């Protein structure tokens, strides 16, 4: 069948314009991040933005990634699936993405802080670590 309209070539392919990539959310988000970073600079107040709760249009998420970029620090945590923590090219603005074991995003945060809490060792964990280390030492003595 080669009648008009039935050929693959007849399907128009349009390049997506930059304007079509964002319906305005990115500018709004950047304004909020700026305001929060200002607070961090002035009085050390930290902030968090939950990206999962925002209705981003297709392409906007990627645009935000591109805009914030990647800075000096990147870290990876393995705890019930990986977590990826990067400092964006704006120091103090962190992008924290938690994945499950299958690689799906379960939480996605922009954190405006000195260091995201998830990177810090937790008291309950290092208490347990201390016990384990002591046990290891005692085992070595016997």
């Amino acid at each position: 069948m080669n009648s008009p309209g039935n050929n693959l070539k007849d399907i128009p392919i349009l390049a997506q314009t930059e304007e079509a990539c964002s319906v305005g959310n990115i500018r709004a988000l950047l304004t909020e991040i700026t305001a929060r970073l200002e607070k961090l600079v002035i009085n050390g107040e930290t902030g968090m933005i939950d990206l999962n709760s925002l209705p981003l249009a297709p392409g906007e998420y990627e645009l935000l990634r591109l805009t914030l970029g990647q800075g000096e620090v990147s870290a990876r945590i393995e705890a019930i699936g990986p977590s990826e923590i990067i400092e964006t090219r704006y120091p103090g603005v962190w992008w924290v993405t938690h994945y499950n074991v299958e690689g799906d995003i379960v939480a996605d945060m922009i954190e405006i802080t000195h260091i995201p809490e998830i990177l810090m060792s937790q008291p309950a964990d290092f208490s347990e670590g201390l016990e384990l280390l002591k046990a290891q030492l005692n085992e070595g003595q016997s």
Partner: protein
Amino acid sequence: MNEHETLGERLAQQGISRRAFLKFCTAMASLMALPPGSVTAIAEALVKAKRPSVIWLSFQECTGCTESLTRSHTPTLENMIFDMISLDYHHTLQAASGYGAEKSREDTMRDFYGKYLLVVDGSIPLNDGGVYSTIAGRTNLDLLQEAAKGAAAIIAVGTCAAFGGIPNAKPNPTGAVAVTDIIKDKPIVNISGCPPIPAVITGVLAHYLTFGFLPELDDLGRPKSFYGETIHDRCYRRPFYDQGKFAKSFDDEGARNGWCLFELGCKGPTTHNVCATTKWNGGTSFPIESGHGCLGCSEPHFWDAGSFYSALSMSSSPLKLATDAVVAGAAVGVAVSIANRLKKSAAKSAHQTATIADLEK
């Protein structure tokens, strides 16, 4: 019988680190739409929470709700939900069968009287003495009334249990009704949707464990944190609605440009749910993002609300377009819309070191 152990003890037994638990709580806070700064408070409360016994009764249903929960996108996190509760009776998931299965239900009702959670999926048929759906020779009505007596609270999962759903659609040959039509003296939370978003089921359980009571509900008994806004409110295509840009058919230029599907019958403006932000299939997309309007499955009588493809304003259906949605949509420009959204997200993410007492306010 002894109380169940706390969630913290249970997780420690499984070698789950506090950092991993913090990550889980971050996901839970995001789910429950609590301020991100409340993660530490949630973690402290959850780790001390006693795991409640849960009896799950399935009535006139298709098992889609159970499939939604057990095949959800976050298997490991959902497994932690199963660690958060002691699921003592569930037809589809339990290993026991026959008399053994029914005995575990009876034991739980006796040992945890006044303390267990009752989860119900499916509607309850009342016609002809309720004979259209029976389990172990007993009608759904009988089983529900018996189990409801000792329940601390009831969670009606899915549109069938919440509002009667498809069995209740005209002409409703079995006389199907919702849980709230039968049980009047217990706190009941409706988690509607066909099926409901698995994360919402998880979120309500996490809320109950964190605070010890059910979340704040709307006038249809649904948790406000998930059903407080319409699909339309949170839709990424909303700016096109504000600009008057509509797809007129499923293959026109407007559809290709991703414009608003209102004129193609999208029920987003009258449907309360979190599909637009929580999304489906591991956060991949939701119906509107795939190019199809919302069917309104989390609202009562969605099956009898006229064609899925009739625009709301033209429909004479029970799902009437709220006038304020039309007026607001027509009157505000895109600038206002973005400003509001910014305000909303600013309000939501306002960072405070919250305590559980603060969250209960």
